[in-house]
């Protein structure tokens, strides 16, 4: 577990620069994979937002795609129908829209717990999917929303076919998102979230406004997910129904669990491993892919609850002990 709290040093360790080094290296060394890379970066940001509420605050949700989808559709609709095409403006608009959705649904969901809460997250995501599916004139329905054109960033950098611009935009946005999330989890607010996850009764008893804190983090998480959604729209210049519903939510949960939940960098490792494996295997062996995912999930929760990073930590500890 990455250590936070009142005795933890917030200094950025050298290992924490590695993902960014890798991100820049990919840009120069693997130019033919930049569109795929942009997709991975988008998912890392999305997973990071989920980690904030699942890993830190302990809210189990099956509907996080609602915010990603809201961001994606708002950016797409503004670009395709309103002809508002500035990518930065679209990111901001998606953030606001997802934030509004987050604070209104959060106000409802966070008053409940257990099965009811789980069910509400699922129902709200299903509702969003149904709206996108049926409001065909605005969203394009099952055919998806096409005709999305995005203007160059600052009027200078146009979105190219190889995804160079998109990749860099995603990388910079992710850096900003990571910095924000990192500050949050090292702050007293972040310590409170861990406290709520560990024992919400006790948080009430020490006088913490639990509901308000949860609503705050839920809204922030929704906004970050909305940004990720808008990034996906700008990269692909298209929005499909597959950004909404239970399946993308479940898939994201799988990525996060694979990387390691509640440890910040699990949100980096999970999507990278998952999406590369999916790209390599899923098309040739779709059935075995799902079988493998299912098996992996069961094994992770049975034997390796810290995910890949947890395994790496355990391995490192063993090596250190034997040296």
């Amino acid at each position, binding site marked *: *577990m990455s250590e936070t709290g009142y*005795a*933890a040093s917030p200094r950025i360790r050298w290992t924490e620069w590695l993902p960014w080094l890798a991100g820049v290296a990919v840009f120069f060394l693997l130019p033919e994979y930049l569109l795929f890379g942009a997709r991975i970066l988008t998912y890392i940001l999305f997973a990071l937002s989920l980690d904030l509420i699942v890993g830190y605050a302990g809210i189990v949700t099956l509907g996080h795609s609602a915010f990603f989808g809201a961001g994606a559709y708002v950016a797409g609709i503004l670009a395709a129908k309103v002809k508002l095409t500035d990518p930065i403006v679209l990111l901001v608009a998606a953030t606001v829209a997802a934030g509004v959705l987050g604070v209104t649904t959060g106000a409802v969901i966070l008053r409940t717990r257990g099965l009811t809460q789980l069910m509400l997250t699922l129902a709200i995501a299903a509702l969003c999917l149904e709206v996108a599916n049926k409001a065909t004139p605005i969203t394009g329905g099952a055919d998806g929303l096409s005709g999305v054109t995005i203007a160059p960033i600052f009027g200078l950098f146009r979105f190219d076919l190889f995804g160079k611009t998109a990749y860099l935009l995603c990388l910079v946005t992710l850096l900003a998102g990571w910095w924000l999330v990192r500050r949050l989890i090292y702050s007293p607010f972040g310590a409170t979230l861990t406290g709520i996850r560990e024992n919400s009764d006790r948080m009430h008893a020490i006088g913490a406004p639990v509901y308000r804190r949860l609503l705050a983090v839920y809204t922030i998480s929704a906004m970050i997910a909305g940004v990720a959604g808008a990034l996906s729209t700008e990269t692909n210049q298209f929005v499909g129904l597959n950004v909404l519903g239970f399946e993308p939510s479940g898939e994201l949960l799988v990525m996060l669990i694979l990387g390691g939940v509640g440890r910040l960098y699990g949100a980096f490792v999970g999507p990278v491993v998952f999406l590369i494996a999916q790209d390599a295997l899923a098309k040739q062996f779709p059935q075995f892919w799902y079988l493998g995912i299912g098996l992996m999930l069961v094994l992770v929760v049975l034997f390796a609850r810290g995910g890949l990073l947890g395994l790496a930590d355990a391995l490192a500890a063993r090596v250190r002990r034997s040296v």
Partner: protein
Amino acid sequence: MTHTALETRALCKSFGALTVADQIDFRLETGIRHALIGPNGAGKTTFVNMLTGRLAPSSGQVLLGGGDVTRLSQEARVKRGLGRTFQINTLFRGMTVLDNVALGVAERQRVGGRPWRPASAYAHVRDEAVDLLRTFGLETDARRRVVDLPYGKQRLVEIAIALGLQPTVLLLDEPAAGVPSLESGRILDALAQLPAHIAIMIIEHDMDLVFRFAQRITVLVQGQVLREGPPAEIADDPRVHQAYLGERRG
């Protein structure tokens, strides 16, 4: 004039046909050491939960420092000086001992919601938490996770968290429950050291501890106050004996 730290007036609670608190009038004076005793199922925990705001009473009032807090949330009551410990360990198990205490201190200092500067930059929170740990002899355990602590020490952490809220009223729900008798002496020592101005109500089954600690005792039986008075009177009251013997027979 003696000031009443905590008071209830005709407090009632029923679940359907079952009445678990029946017209409880209770006064806790400032700085007093008061014990609440009674057989299992007498409604002690229900009573405490109504005092702290975890449970809403069916009727009656709760007054804290003279002000009516019956409708206030748990959080608001804590802010007005009401602290509590739990009967069953309810700590932040995966967190360090220091963070367990610091979380409460941060809430009291109203910095618990600050989202930007790192927690470690709030030195006044950390220092106060460390001081608290020192008074309980826990400073060397500050960086250990709570789950790795022996049970007796966990109970001390529980009390340290409550003290970090700087309460004027402290409710201790069976502070020595489950602690091996060798270690329970340490709990009693810790209780004896608590600041004199805090009004303390303790719920306890260990009569030895109760009679050594309390200046006043209230006996609760079947949701009603059976008797209230100084320890000597309570010890001699035949009705109290009967209530306890009755429990043993049943």
